């Protein structure tokens, strides 16, 4: 069997294993969706009036704020799902089963690739679920073309891929599942410091550069632009650059860590 065929076959076996875990224990995935959904409902129905006044000046109402907040929460959903990836990778590494995989004549990277592909699929499913909640409370895309929908989908997948590889690295260097969960916290805290809930313009001046150039804001602004027709500008290429950079960094970090002798 060629190396590529071996990689594909073993990785898909590992993917099946991870999907089986997710299907058998959906509670872990669903728990991770609670945070974005709660924040969505909280910000829309509890803080909604104040928040809408903050984003659009006069005439802005709750439905404007729903439109504003949903793209950010979709990306936050991805961050939240990948915390689950870090935890499950770390749990996997402490189990004997991965030691067994390491002593088998299988493709070396398949263990990680199976996790990554599984996690990206889970992220997409989670985004669809949170998106459905958004639509249920009144989110509507304004005249996005098929191409823009496709680009939005591509961005979400790319973003999920990038965060997943980073989460895999975090999971690998964590000694246990609790530590992995803590180490991966930034993945769900960063969106709070982005333009997800309030525009960057409304933040203190010294903080604006941080909020503006961290990975979430460009991705959020790009998604907004694609779904709602707002200005994308430099956010587009910044988002793609962040995604590619994080994905490559996470990939090399994870594979190098996995290649080391286990403790």
């Amino acid at each position, binding site marked *: *069997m060629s190396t590529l065929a071996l990689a594909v*076959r*073993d990785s898909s*076996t590992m993917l*099946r*294993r991870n999907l*089986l*875990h997710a299907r*058998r*224990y959906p509670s872990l995935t669903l728990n991770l969706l609670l945070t974005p959904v709660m924040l969505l409902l909280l910000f829309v129905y509890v803080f909604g009036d104040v928040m809408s006044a903050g984003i659009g000046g006069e005439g802005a109402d709750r439905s404007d704020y729903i439109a504003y907040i949903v793209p950010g929460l979709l990306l936050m959903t991805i961050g939240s799902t990948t915390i689950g990836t870090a935890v499950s990778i770390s749990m996997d590494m402490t*189990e*004997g*089963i991965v*030691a*067994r*995989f*390491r*002593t*088998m*004549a*299988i493709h070396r990277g398949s263990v990680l690739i199976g996790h990554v592909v599984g996690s990206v699929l889970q992220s997409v499913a989670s985004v669809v679920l949170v998106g459905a909640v958004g639509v249920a409370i009144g989110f509507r895309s304004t005249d996005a073309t098929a191409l823009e929908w496709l680009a939005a989908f591509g961005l979400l997948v790319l973003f999920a891929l990038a965060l997943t590889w980073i989460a895999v690295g975090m999971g690998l260097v964590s000694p246990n599942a609790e530590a992995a969960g803590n180490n991966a916290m930034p993945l769900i805290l960063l969106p709070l410091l982005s333009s997800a809930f309030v525009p960057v313009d409304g933040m203190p001046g010294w903080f604006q550069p941080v909020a503006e150039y961290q990975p979430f804001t460009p991705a959020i602004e790009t998604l907004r632009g694609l779904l709602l027709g707002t200005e994308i500008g430099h956010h587009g290429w910044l988002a793609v650059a962040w995604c590619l950079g994080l994905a490559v960094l996470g990939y090399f970090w994870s594979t190098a860590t996995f290649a080391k*002798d*286990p403790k």
Partner: protein
Amino acid sequence: MTGLAIAANGLRKSYGDKTVLDGVDLNVPEGTIFSLLGPNGAGKTTAVKILSTLVTADAGDLRVGGHDLATDPRAVRAAIGVTGQFSAVDGLITGEENMLLMADLHHLSRAQGRRVAAELLERFDLAEAARKPASTYSGGMKRRLDIAMTLVGEPRIIFLDEPTTGLDPRSRHTMWQIIRELVTGGVTVFLTTQYLEEADELADRIAVLHDGRIAAEGSAGELKRLVPGGHVRLRFTDPAAYRAAASALREASRDDDALALQIPSGGSQRELRAVLDRLDTAGVEADELTVHTPDLDDVFFALTGGAAVPAPSKEAVR
């Protein structure tokens, strides 16, 4: 093939400044059971981890299944199966799914995988529990599933790292039976254990690992011949009688806490009578007398520097 399933020369490994394996040589002929015996922390697990490609050695010329560990770990992996000390099963999925996972990773066809999985589950008495999550299995069941998973790829060389640690006596005997059956099929078994009895029962050759070195190697019989004969153990309930006996039998080693004396003895009628005569002369009577023939425990204590310590408890006296 050289006829050796495992050949290690000058195996060294240290973690930081702690040397775990300090120049270990091991030769295991094909189709035999080899036991690496040693107390906790002796380096047994490290040896298994290295020989099974999990961890890289610092130095040593190592060949497993005729393949060089350093240059061709993949070929080694294709030849071996490993059952580690901590069960290597996926607890979140069922026993059957664990087996099918192994079948997939060994690139068996779907039908073949199902057949092999069903056969092994049956053979290891797991057919009934096959549809339950492995996390619900008892220790013995997990260990059996673990070995069944190892066998899916029909490995020629199997590493078993303390396969019976933590098992109840019944499961332990089942495991021994399984290991014996493995070698009848021509498989080589590399077994680590801290139980001397287990090595005695199963192994063709035994190496005693102590402080990162092989302290002795040979068959169980050869090792037993390394230590001089057995001993007679006398136990007293009356401290005064114990003291009187101790002064009468000066060569005996004393265990003051247990009020017990150990006298070197081959266990023959004449030697026993001599001991009893001396006790009679001193006018003391032992409450319990046991004859202890040399076993691997004695070898082990002699080799690992614990020779002066009498057998710690009754379980060592069979």
